[in-house]
């Protein structure tokens, strides 16, 4: 049954996949992300992160609030390359766009 419970819709990750990752020792939320691929699709974790953080916390026997989200990656939403290509920060000699996210 756990192999049929989808916990990340973008990448078809099941509850079983998440539990298998934790059993192997890949139990940190960053490790679970890499081992199962959850949160690496179009939603970038916006739909699935809270649910999987709760599973990770339960298995580790800690409060859900103590499991941090995995590192969020820009851009905020999927964005066409042509829009970035027009950005003035694309001139490498210009100092624009140097803020870190």
């Amino acid at each position: 049954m756990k192999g049929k419970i989808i916990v990340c819709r973008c990448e078809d990750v099941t509850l079983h996949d998440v539990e298998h990752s934790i059993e192997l020792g890949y139990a940190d939320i960053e490790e679970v992300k890499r081992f199962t691929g959850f949160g690496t699709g179009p939603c970038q974790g916006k739909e699935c992160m809270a649910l999987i953080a709760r599973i990770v916390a339960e298995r580790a026997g800690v409060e859900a609030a103590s499991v941090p989200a995995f590192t969020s990656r820009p851009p905020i939403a999927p964005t066409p390359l042509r829009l970035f290509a027009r950005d003035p920060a694309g001139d490498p000699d210009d100092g624009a766009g140097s803020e870190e996210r």
Partner: protein
Amino acid sequence: MAFGSDLVIDRTRSGEPLPERAELVIIGAGVMGLSIAYNTAKRGLTDVVVLDRGYLAEGASGRNGGGVRQQWSTELNVRLMAESVEMCRRFAKELEFNVWFRQGGYLFLARSAAEVSRLEKNVELQRRCGIPVRMLDAEGARDIVPELSLDGIAGAAYNPSDGILFPWPFLWGYAQQATKLGVKLHTFTPCVGIDVEPGGGFVVHTERGSVRAARVLDACGAWSGEVSCMVGVELPTWPIRHEICSSEPLKPFLRPMVSELSSGLYFSQSMRGEIVGGVSLPNEAPTLSMGSRLKFLAHYSRRLVSLIPRLGNVKVLRQWAGPYDMSPDGNPILGEPPGVPGFFLCCGFVGHGFMMAPVVGKLYAEWLTGGDKHEIFGLHTLDRFHGAGAGDVAKEDFNIG
């Protein structure tokens, strides 16, 4: 995605304490440390502990573009990489882990006569080493990648036997097999100090306890200098941030990794269908920061869309960064530094350690287990940068991206 068997790989998670002693402690569970651990264990030296301060794939081994190529400018690197490619081909079978290795080739694009002659010189060397690489004109490049804009393209070098892999499972495969053979892997175990024992050997102190070790190997990539300082060894290496990004998945259309010499642009299509790529940014100051910047994404997008205009409508899903471990002559630093016998270095791979790791791990393990000492361990030493013999090593100038 689902990988692996029902084996507990990570001792930290199972609550196991560090062992009191080990023959070899490897600091850094990146691809280099894990490849060395797997290969030493395979050769019978299983009393090995691998430490990492974070999780597997947290450093540059989990942040690179997965390219594996034989197009290099020194004969040594061409021959080493030819062996590494063969090892990548056999990896899934030998280590029982699918690393999604795909030999779609590497296409290097030149935009000037000078760049063309640079490629021609390398191609001549590579062909002498038996690599099936060839020069192409602009039209020939478009036969390989029909979507290319030929505007300003002066020529290209194409080797069909280069390829790409998915970096993360490579680490898990090495970790799983090394563990099965008896290697102890402890992640989230930062090394905080190393005592050099007067009678030989070391005590490696971590936040989770100490391990006595006959030998220690530093394979911490861009962080290697922090560890070598603990035994009084200063490295001439420095970290440079390289950013990279991934698009939404597309139907497979792009066979090779494509790289533009003039900008350091590189991109390939992963087995998941994403376009994964990066570009060089000029005048970058040394940093271990892994923050992401709009400056990178805008410059990358500009270069990529001008080369393949049709990609303009493809969406970027995410960007990230990792450090290159730069060395003064573009070659790695290996072996025992002067004055600290039993302490081994494996760093300075200038952003290409991942593809070198299969062969370097094998060669290192041969040496550490009493077998042959390959010439790289005599050539690529720390003391080549000082005193007699300094500057005798052929400079590798084809570190692209």
